[in-house]
């Protein structure tokens, strides 16, 4: 069955060219903010505030967390309405391993698919074979091994998982630091170590070698999960994230428009404290946020994915 669906996804281009086009779009989003939106009005606010893309979904992570139940791909009708409204790229989420949802999103011509731990996983062993799609995928990762496995499957962008819908930046910071430390260690290692590193990371050898030689991932690396303030965005940018996803942080706050603009400016001018001070002033309260120590292990979305 799956080989049949794979044949349907034959591309007009050689694999390397398609990969270049996918990473090319990710490159164009660098330095920007990708905002979660649940309707056309929010999408317009995001675009006006300077978002580089929107993530169209029915419920933002903070609400999924409260309401529970199975979280699935959004209604294509909602995604289509948002596509018809804004000129910036529109992304949408499918469940981990749910390649049929991904096929639907590709048929809808979304610009990027997020195979996301925020939704309820559909496969507890395998992720989607992403190389067989023409639309690029972004996947979450908590460490270097996970990032390289997702890239090996065809992801064109990696984002930290953080802890979605928490308004708490601590997990995203942990994931960025783990990634940075592992890449720095690998970059300083001897070629004789690489195969053992690949074994330990459970990652493809060729990708381990790339990181060892270049010192960075072969695809752009963005940050997601818990960004609620301009200072949060600046923090993760200074820790090496090349762009940021803001989920619940904007539309769960008391002043989405002003906060969205402030986070956009802070993401660009992340290393300019004067600018950060200017945009941080006078905002209404941020989303309340969660103390993650009170979460049970099964409530942690970041532990989803394999």
């Amino acid at each position, binding site marked *: 069955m799956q080989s049949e669906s794979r044949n349907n996804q034959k591309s007009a*281009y050689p694999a390397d*060219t398609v990969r*270049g*086009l996918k990473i*090319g*779009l990710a*490159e*164009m*989003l*660098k*330095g*920007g903010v990708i905002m979660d939106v649940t309707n056309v009005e929010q999408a317009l606010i995001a*675009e*006006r*505030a*300077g*978002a*580089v*893309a929107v993530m169209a979904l029915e419920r933002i992570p903070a609400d999924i967390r409260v309401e529970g139940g199975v979280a699935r791909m959004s209604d294509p009708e909602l995604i289509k309405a948002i*596509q018809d409204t804004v*000129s*910036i*790229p529109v992304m949408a989420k499918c469940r981990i391993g749910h390649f049929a949802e991904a096929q639907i999103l*590709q048929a809808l*011509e*979304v*610009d*990027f698919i997020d195979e996301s731990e925020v939704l309820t996983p559909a496969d507890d062993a395998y992720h989607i074979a992403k190389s067989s799609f*023409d*639309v*690029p995928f972004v996947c979450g990762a908590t460490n270097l091994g996970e990032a390289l496995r997702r890239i090996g499957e065809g992801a064109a962008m990696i984002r930290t998982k953080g802890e979605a819908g928490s308004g708490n930046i601590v997990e995203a910071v942990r994931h960025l630091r783990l990634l940075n430390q592992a890449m720095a260690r690998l970059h300083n290692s001897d070629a004789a170590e690489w195969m053992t590193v690949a074994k330990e990371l459970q990652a493809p050898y060729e990708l381990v070698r790339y990181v060892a030689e270049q010192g960075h991932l072969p695809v752009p690396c963005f940050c997601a999960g818990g960004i609620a303030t301009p200072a949060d965005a600046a923090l993760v940018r200074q820790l090496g994230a090349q762009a940021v996803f803001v989920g619940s942080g904007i539309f769960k706050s008391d002043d989405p428009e002003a906060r969205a*603009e402030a986070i*956009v*400016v802070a993401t*660009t*001018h992340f290393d*300019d404290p004067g600018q950060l001070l200017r945009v941080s002033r006078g905002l209404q309260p941020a989303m309340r946020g969660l103390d993650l120590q009170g979460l049970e292990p099964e409530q942690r979305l970041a532990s989803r994915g394999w």
Partner: protein
Amino acid sequence: MVVGLIGVLALQGGYQRHADHLDRCGVKWCLVRNAETLARCAALILPGGESTAITRLLQAEKLLEPLRRFTQSHPVMATCAGLIMMARSNDARVESLNALDLDVARNAYGRQIKSFQCSIQIDLGTDSDSFPAVFIRAPQIMQYGPSVTVLAQHQGSPVLVAQGWHLGMTFHPELSDDLRVHRYWLERIAALHDAVVSQKESLCKT
């Protein structure tokens, strides 16, 4: 080759890849995020990205007017969203710099799934050769004025144009390993620089 400091507008988008290309061309560059840095540059690259986001960030930084003045007196290389900023666009969400006599349509080929790569023939003066052009949610040049020279076309519409010192393109030369488009622009700037110097020298002599 004397070209001075090349700025790369780094508000958002593909600026790092352009900077990497400039590195490989062996010229000095800097990332530009404010008017003070812009004032130090001899020429500027406007990279791809999202033109609505770049517009918003230019407004927030009050950089639109300094940039407009810069384009009137300095060479600019503009790719994709950068070209949209330099030309007249069909979209009120984008504030144009009105520096190129062109009308462009945003996302003219469609969404990401319509992004493509193809070989285009570029006449770079010395030889006519093929160049691997990467088009990402690319705009299309719909009309252009008499001061615009078309250097390459794809399916009958211009994809690489020159107007005075400026070079504009709907594709992304920074996403391929090929440096020829960047080199061509830098050589134009160097030639311009030499011409200005020799003009000054001849003025001094007389």
